[in-house]
């Protein structure tokens, strides 16, 4: 076994040192009826054979590297610089443990500190933690914080928040006995402000808005934070962080908490995970922030040092309902995001955001000219938008798949009133040729 150094000679040495005559003497406390179960597993393989096996499985997948993909809806195809892959492949980052021994982990801890700094800058808020599992669980944690802080148990969630996220919220909040209420959206595919304002009362801890929302709309939140704060309600904004390079971030809207999916920041799509839930708050919530957080301090010699800090709350169980759950972070994914954001830098993060807007805007304009498809050119978008066809999307999807194109994500399943509608995403990975080919293929359907 190439992962197992212990030889049969070594085993003899160990048993002798332990003063037993056989391995079974070491496990004699295990009831005989339980010992040595029959496992239904295939035999092991050499590395070469395993690689061949994986390649065989791979043949049954069509990847977005060979297919022109216009899929978005919470997971995005972006260009990731080679440096990112080099750094996350470094043994010292990849195979390190959680930095509980700071002297042995300054690399990880400083990288986390830089991550926190970058996320705070990007979201326009004051403090970020070291991350959560994904955007959905990060949102759930934000709602729990809001409930803790306000002492209220109702959460209002826009219908324009990602359907998976709303489902995860439902699961988490009902486990903790909190109430979730959904408010709707307008025909313009933006959240319904009037409906929201009517639903706010003093049992509401927070309002959750996603922007850009599930339909791709960049929401206008003018005056919302003030309206809510006057009523003791917190504003949680869930958003695509890549959009914040050029588009107004949660901090500039007066949000209390910013959460969302960090996958667009240098993390491969990997069929849905592992991803990166970012979590940033305004300064007043600093001591209530869940999860891990790195801080800058000094060591016994007066040198700069990084440590995990504000850990007390992780362990604190109050007599009344405990409102914190231990959260690990997604360190390696956060590292990928850190390297990505650092390489992009001040100019690059704005540029990549602008190119996304450019590609989506161009594509939408072109589609608006094709018979059989409707788009709303007035809808302000980042890199996704809704197309309504005159035939079922399943047909279009199948037709375009034959032409090596993933046409988009169907909307009718989660929004039954949106017949024949689908969500199209165009990122900086799409050239003019890719976009024109897509439009042409749609026209041929």
């Amino acid at each position, binding site marked *: 076994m190439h992962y197992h150094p212990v030889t049969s000679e070594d085993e003899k040495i160990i048993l002798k040192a332990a003063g037993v005559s056989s391995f079974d003497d070491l496990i004699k406390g295990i009831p005989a009826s339980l010992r040595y179960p029959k496992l239904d597993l295939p035999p092991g393989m050499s590395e070469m054979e395993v690689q061949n096996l994986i390649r065989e499985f791979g043949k049954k997948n069509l990847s977005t590297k060979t297919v022109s993909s216009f899929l978005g809806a919470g997971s995005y195809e972006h260009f990731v610089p080679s440096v990112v892959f080099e750094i996350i492949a470094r043994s010292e980052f990849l195979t390190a443990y959680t930095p509980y021994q700071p002297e042995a982990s300054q690399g990880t801890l400083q990288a986390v500190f830089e991550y926190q700094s970058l996320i705070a800058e990007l979201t326009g808020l004051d403090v970020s933690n070291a991350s959560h599992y994904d955007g959905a669980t990060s949102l759930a944690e934000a709602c729990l914080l809001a409930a803790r802080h306000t002492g209220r148990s109702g959460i209002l969630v826009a219908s324009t928040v990602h359907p998976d996220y709303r489902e995860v919220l439902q699961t988490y909040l009902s486990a903790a006995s909190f109430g979730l209420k959904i408010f709707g959206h307008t025909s313009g595919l933006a959240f319904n402000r009037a409906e929201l304002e009517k639903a706010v009362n003093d049992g509401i801890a927070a309002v959750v808005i996603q922007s850009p929302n599930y339909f791709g709309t960049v929401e206008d939140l003018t005056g919302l934070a003030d309206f809510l704060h006057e009523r003791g309600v917190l504003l949680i904004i869930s958003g695509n962080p890549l959009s914040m390079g050029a588009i107004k971030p949660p901090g500039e809207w007066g949000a209390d908490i910013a959460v969302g999916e960090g996958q667009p920041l240098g993390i491969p799509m990997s069929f849905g995970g*592992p991803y990166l839930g970012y979590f940033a708050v305004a300064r007043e919530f600093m001591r209530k922030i869940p999860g891990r957080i790195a801080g800058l301090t000094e060591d016994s010699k007066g040198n700069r040092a990084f440590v995990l800090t504000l850990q007390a709350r992780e362990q604190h169980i109050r007599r009344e309902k405990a409102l914190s759950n231990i959260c690990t972070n997604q360190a390696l994914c956060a590292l990928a995001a850190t390297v990505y954001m650092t390489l992009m830098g001040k100019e690059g993060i704005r540029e990549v955001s602008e190119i996304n807007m450019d590609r989506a805007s161009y594509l939408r304009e072109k589609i608006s000219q094709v018979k059989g498809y409707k788009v709303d050119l007035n809808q302000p978008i980042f890199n996704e938008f809704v197309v309504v066809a005159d035939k079922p999307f399943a047909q279009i999807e199948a037709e375009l798949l034959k032409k090596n194109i993933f046409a988009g994500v169907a909307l009718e399943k989660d929004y039954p009133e949106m017949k024949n509608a689908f969500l199209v995403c165009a990122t900086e990975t799409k050239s003019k040729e890719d976009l024109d080919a897509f439009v042409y293929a749609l026209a041929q359907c």
Partner: protein
Amino acid sequence: MLISNDSRLSFEKSREGRRGALLPTDRLAKAARLPEKLMRQHAPAFPEISEPEAMRHFVNLSRKNFSIDTHFYPLGSCTMKYNPKVNEWAARHRKFASLHPLQPVSTVQGMMQVMVELEQGLMTIAGMDRFTLQPAAGAHGELTGLMLVHAYHAARGDHHRRKVLVPDSSHGTNPATAALVGYEVVQMKSNDRGRLSVEELEKHLDDNVACLMLTNPNTLGLFEEDILEVAKRVHAKGGLLYYDGANLNALLGIARPGDMGFDIVHINLHKTFSTPHGGGGPGSGPVGVKKHLIPFLPHPLVEKKGDQYVFSQRSPQSIGRVKAFHGNAGTLLRAFVYMRSLGLEGIKKTGRDAVLNANYVRVKLRDAFKPAVDEPCMHEFVLTLKPEQASPFSAGSAHAGQSLHASDIGKRILDYGFHAPTVHFPLVVPDAIMIEPTESESLETLDSFIEAMKAIAEEIRTTPEKILQAPYDLPIRRPNEVLAARKPILTYRDYLREKADSPQPRAHSLV
């Protein structure tokens, strides 16, 4: 010097005009810009550094870390085994890494087959009937598991079951998770052999118990010998048994939680199945259940229908989703590759070698320190300090009256080139030092570690003050965690604000 002592942040290396990455310059749309009120007003103060500078910055950071690939990591309860590189090759393969989660199912049959076959492997290894692969980590798996417990009892109208029993040696996540789901947590005392006795169970077991959460072997590395009787009694009272899979590595090929009577199991793929810890994640925590709990599993599940792989129809009793999309697919793929590489014989050898290696280190250190329970262990064991080690300073010395703690031993072992074992856990043993070598280590490595621990024991006897100030040979020493918590500096902006009081960074220098 070999390892740079530069402690500057990337922000502090920034110079206006430097770029780390370039992007296409063509623009296609006439007017993509949004109304001004929707545009960002203040640019984010990201650093501006070039690609070579970024590469050097991050590579040098990595060199300040201990890692499995560089050091032996005997962290009890963490299973720091070797992370095979072919797993990384697979996870990065374009046919897997660039799959979008919402692609038509017909285009991802290979990935879905991996998930189904992984599930089947986990089922036979753990002795369970079905798994959800959605949870993203161990704690996430625990939360899922307890929500399953809650849903199961609620469906039977058993709303009076408000208690969850845990042993006092349990991991901190157990009570926290149980409390979040609205349960009252009751701790049971371990006996003097470190185990849960049937007598102790009977003191707390009644019709109000929703579930008993256990890990087996327990956090002392000892097999819960009365598990069959414990399971029988909990079930007789209508309760469920939950298995925390943190210590599953000890059982591979030797025994199965499903056979012991556990109804729900979570597995830590980043422990037992070799997926890399990455400095603190990502992980993956699949949850396995027995038949009677299948209807409650999170949706969707992946399954084979005929010769096609599909997402299951939603069960009406499902607890819902615990994560967006399908789970940490990249991590699941790594675990699958590992499982197939090992195969039946490899899985069996893993559990066996883990137990052998732990017992080897245990007997060699039983005189140098004090074993918490002096018996053969499974894959890990706990030591503590002898009274004279805990109070090693004589009355006349400069440190008279001061104690030495497990954490001090942990710091000193870093100087010897090993990562510290887990210290101060489990809480039932004062000054606990938990050691788990794993099956990945050679006898020679174990011998070096044993020598180092014996040397430290000698240092405690002759020059204990040396331990108090350890470590000596690392980039930083004994950071001030109290200051970090009193005056939190959590971002570069915070640092700029507090600048006067904070230590100034050092660029690479000879001093």
